[in-house]
């Protein structure tokens, strides 16, 4: 309850983030292919996959649905939604609280649900990402509910043009509950494979998924590939894999192809399958990108902004809380230093005529060295100082 309340408070606080930071994007995949489920009839299949993602400040919401139409009128729907709230970064450290929901619906058969909540702690050194996570939740399938727990560890890095990610996820679920037996958590000694309680089998499923995945781009083709292995003493070990490729053919349209083997889900008893599909992807909105990481040094923490045209001038705002004076020079001032005026508690401001186009500029705080404004990429001038180039639209 406390955890839920904390999550809600975080979401509410995050919802107050400036609307300008909000991004919404979506895709719609439509395609057809072949589908060979475990212990079921193989055949052709048509799928529609809507997906959306929303980000506002440190809050992110994503949802995806997969509707597939199989032969003989059989249809399946698989949905998932996740909400995450991140803390600001403390150096290379960041924490994220996550709530997830997944569910399935099927033709003439009851579906499944799975809810979980947890947290991930990230270390984000330059060029890489490492995380550990812990989640608790509940799965419902075939008329029974099962508590579940997942611990995960992972890392990702960019190697040349390829982005590589590796993850290990250990899942534990009390399978005894699916037979209506007493809650095995009251008897921790019985939580190993095999023992019998009250005439019913009590079993804790423990499985570890190890997945290596990569993404790379060759000209206008983008490839994804993943290879994973499930290790378990209580369920069959399986290898899962997937490859996909997409190529943009118009600003918002791409051709996509995918093939692979999805693993069965021992938690909900949803079977795995082999598949191949070919289709189109329609994109709506801009890609939703994570917020830019905070600048590394204290002197660079203030944002820099050139606002829209206000008559003949544009507003320039620099936040420099500890500064006693801020000057700006650029090709729109003929490189004459212009003092900015204090604005509010932490900011400095000026109204200057700046035409659309590429501009070169620098700022100076308290009469120090010329430097690129915070939040811009610093260039080393031929003259030894630091400047920035910005495009004004």
């Amino acid at each position, binding site marked *: 309850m406390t955890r839920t309340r904390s999550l809600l408070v975080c979401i509410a606080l995050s919802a107050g983030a400036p609307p300008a930071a909000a991004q919404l994007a979506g895709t719609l995949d439509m395609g057809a292919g072949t589908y060979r489920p475990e212990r079921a009839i193989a055949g052709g*299949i048509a799928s529609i996959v809507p997906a959306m993602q929303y980000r506002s400040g440190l809050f992110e919401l994503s949802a995806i649905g*997969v509707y597939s139409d199989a032969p003989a009128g059989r249809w399946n729907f698989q949905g998932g939604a996740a909400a995450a709230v991140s803390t600001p970064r403390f150096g290379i450290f960041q924490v994220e609280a996550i709530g997830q929901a997944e569910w399935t619906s099927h033709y003439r058969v*009851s*579906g499944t649900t799975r809810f979980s909540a947890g947290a991930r702690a990230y270390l984000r050194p330059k060029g890489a990402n490492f995380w550990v996570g812990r989640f608790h939740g509940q799965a419902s399938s075939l008329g029974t509910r099962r508590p579940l727990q997942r611990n995960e560890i992972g890392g990702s890095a960019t190697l040349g043009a390829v982005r590589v990610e590796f993850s290990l996820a250990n899942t534990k679920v009390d399978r005894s509950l699916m037979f209506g037996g007493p809650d095995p958590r009251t008897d921790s000694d019985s939580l190993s494979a095999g023992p019998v309680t009250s005439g019913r089998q009590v079993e804790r499923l423990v499985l570890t998924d190890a997945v290596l995945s990569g993404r790379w781009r060759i000209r206008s083709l983008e490839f994804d590939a993943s290879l994973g292995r499930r290790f378990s003493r209580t369920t069959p070990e399986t290898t899962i894999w997937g490859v*996909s490729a997409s190529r943009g053919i118009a600003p918002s349209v791409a051709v996509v192809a995918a093939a692979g083997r999805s693993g069965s889900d021992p938690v909900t008893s949803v*079977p795995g399958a082999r598949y191949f599909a070919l289709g189109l992807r329609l994109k709506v909105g*801009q890609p939703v990108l994570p917020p830019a990481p905070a600048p590394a040094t204290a002197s660079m923490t203030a944002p820099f902004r050139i606002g829209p045209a206000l008559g003949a001038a544009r507003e320039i705002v620099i936040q420099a809380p500890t500064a006693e004076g801020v000057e700006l020079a650029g090709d729109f001032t003929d490189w004459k230093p212009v003092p900015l005026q204090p604005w509010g508690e932490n900011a400095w401001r000026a109204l200057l005529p700046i035409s659309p186009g590429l501009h070169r500029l620098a700022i100076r705080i308290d009469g120090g060295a010329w430097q690129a404004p915070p939040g811009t990429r610093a260039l080393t*001038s031929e003259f030894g100082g630091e400047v920035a180039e910005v495009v004004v639209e």
Partner: protein
Amino acid sequence: MSAARTLLVSLLLTLPGVAAAQDARLAERLDGATAASVQQTVDSARSRGLPTEPLVQKALEGGTLGASGDKIVAAVSALHGQLGRARSALGRSASESELTAAAGALRAGLPPSALSRLQSLRSGKPLVVPIAVLTDLVAEGVPPEQATRSVLDLAREGRPDDEFVALRRQIQIRRQGGTADPMNRPALRPAADPPVDR
């Protein structure tokens, strides 16, 4: 006599023109020798039909950043050459902003052919943002061939300026270790069959 008078009148008319062409900002902010050298380069650019304002701004930048006269003259001269090569790559229709951006791209090590190709793919749309993004990617450490390929792909697909900016941010985030474009996930996996009681 009449011819001599005509010549004299012409000279008198021309001299004020020459005086007006001399940039007062250079004389105000630079020492005499440096201002004169820079003015020569500016005049040369004007005679070739190249934009002169970027050259003046480069000199003024040097003055503000406290550079020596020699460094200022050398930087202005180098920019003059880059503007010339940029104009050769983009043609006479390129705007001053485009030429300035293209000069920066050449300075960053990109080949003129990349700029020409970009211009042909953009078919009349402004080039400033794509060129600035291309230059930034190279400055971020992306190999020039790879950066050029990425930007040309977007241009080929007719993407708007926003998407070039998004590409730059995406690559910055990738290089900083974040996740890029999470919506671009593996596609089209079919929905699973119903659960099986085993």
